[in-house]
């Protein structure tokens, strides 16, 4: 019997499919993974520390740079945290606009997810489809706030300014075209047997275990745990919308993929409802020019495309936060990587990484 030994393979930080600058130190036995330890910190910018030297309003552009493909969600989470601290009331129209933006952003973010799954599994063309349609959503955001990635649109007390009149028609047009786009993805990717067999049954994490390590978002729901903060602890006006939470059964790669694909459909439904119910009125509450929240601390969490995004803010009564902590879903979801990957093949590590969908801007913060 020949003696074999394991070897170490550094995947990343320069690697085509580690979604940025993640390094995974893999211990391999042939092609089998014995261990896959994610190494982080290549994109660390010290955003939490930066917050301590910025005023409350000045920190909003920095939240854009956390999870940079769903900045609207980050803006929303942060602003609602500060509003909770200030006990501000938000105008109705602003609330609805926030929901529209956050849900459109969820679709955009999941399109990136789909594209990265496609390209990590070698279906280069599939990637282009996701990016083509995400562009439509970015155009909408561009129209509303003048930026395609770092929106800073949601502000403390409301939104920056009302959407332009053509925004409504363009959004409705997008929603009308969206089922057709989804059908195309399903034809090209979801229905594809190679993709199905690549994802089905590999990278399993059970529901209880996922809860134990703090997985949130679609990765948790894929394991069959019905937990969506929009339902469990509705923030803003989410209790007014009728939508369902897609769940998986086994918690494998395929379920994580399916859940996100279904979520896009639900999000489109929420946007439609919000557009129909959109009231007239102001979009900004009366907010003092200099924000000085009362001393105290507050934690607020929202359901971001990647999971539970929480902001913990300690105020000492001055214009700047005393301490700010961000509970980043990508960071916490990433710790499941090692556990999920053990015993899989190298190719599966890439697939698991794609379906866990961590975003390095958020992991390293």
């Amino acid at each position, binding site marked *: 019997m020949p003696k074999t030994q394991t070897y170490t393979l550094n995947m990343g930080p320069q690697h085509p499919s580690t979604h940025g600058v993640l390094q995974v130190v893999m211990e391999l036995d042939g092609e089998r993974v014995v261990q896959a330890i994610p190494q982080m910190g290549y994109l660390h910018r010290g955003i939490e520390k930066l917050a301590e030297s*910025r005023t409350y309003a000045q*920190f909003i*552009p920095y939240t854009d740079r956390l999870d940079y493909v769903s900045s609207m969600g980050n803006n929303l989470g942060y602003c609602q945290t500060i509003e909770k601290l200030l006990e501000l009331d938000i105008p109705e129209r602003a609330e609805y606009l926030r929901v529209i933006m956050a849900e459109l952003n969820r679709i955009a973010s999941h399109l990136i997810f789909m594209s990265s799954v496609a390209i990590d599994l070698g279906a280069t063309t599939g990637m282009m489809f996701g990016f083509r349609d995400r562009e439509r959503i970015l155009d909408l955001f561009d129209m509303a706030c003048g930026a395609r990635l770092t929106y800073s649109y949601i502000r403390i007390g409301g939104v920056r300014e009302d959407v332009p009149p053509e925004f409504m028609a363009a959004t409705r047009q997008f929603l009308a075209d969206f089922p057709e786009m989804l059908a195309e993805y399903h*034809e*090209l990717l*979801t229905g*594809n*047997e190679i993709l199905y067999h690549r994802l089905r049954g590999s990278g399993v994490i059970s529901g209880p275990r996922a809860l134990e390590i703090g997985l949130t978002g679609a990765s948790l729901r894929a394991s069959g745990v019905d937990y969506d903060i929009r339902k469990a602890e509705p923030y803003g006006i989410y209790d007014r919308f009728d939508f369902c939470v897609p769940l998986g059964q086994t918690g494998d790669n395929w379920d994580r993929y399916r859940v996100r694909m279904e979520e896009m459909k639900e999000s489109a439904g929420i946007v439609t409802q919000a557009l129909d119910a959109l009231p007239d009125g102001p979009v900004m509450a009366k907010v003092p020019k200099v924000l000085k929240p009362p001393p105290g601390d507050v934690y607020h969490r929202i359901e971001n495309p990647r999971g539970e995004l929480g902001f913990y803010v300690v105020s000492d009564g001055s214009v700047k936060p005393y301490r700010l902590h961000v509970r980043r879903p990508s960071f916490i979801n990433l710790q499941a990587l090692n556990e999920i990957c053990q015993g899989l093949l190298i190719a599966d590590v890439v697939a698991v990484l794609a379906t866990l969908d961590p975003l390095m801007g958020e992991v390293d913060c």
Partner: protein
Amino acid sequence: MQGKGLLSGLKVTLNRFFGKKVTVHYPEEKLPMPERFRGGELDLDHQKCIACGLCAMACPNKVIELTTQTDEQKKRHLTSYRYRSGRCLYCNYCIEACPTNAIRWDKNYENSRYHRQQLDVDCLAISKKKAPPAAQDSAKEVAE
């Protein structure tokens, strides 16, 4: 049936092969920028500016550096206005802070440079160079 999905995928790519292309030939063809587009460099109108420094204060990243001088009539004037685009977050806070709408984006997104120093823009000098005669300026204001 196994293989049906493969065939439908082939159908999609073949359709796209003969279908319309969605990309834009960039240098020849440019996408129109929306009205609210935030990008490029700050376009300062030094005649409107009252040198209050609110823009520099609103900035989260200390991008704007300005110095002022008070003249005999106790009126403040800009003596320098430096915009360091390399540090800019394009958050729009300075423009929102400005009480006289003296700054706006020039919306030129082709702002890559060869050297880092070139990222610093002396907005006051640019503004003075292209400063229109006073008559035209007021006419423009009326039009707006």
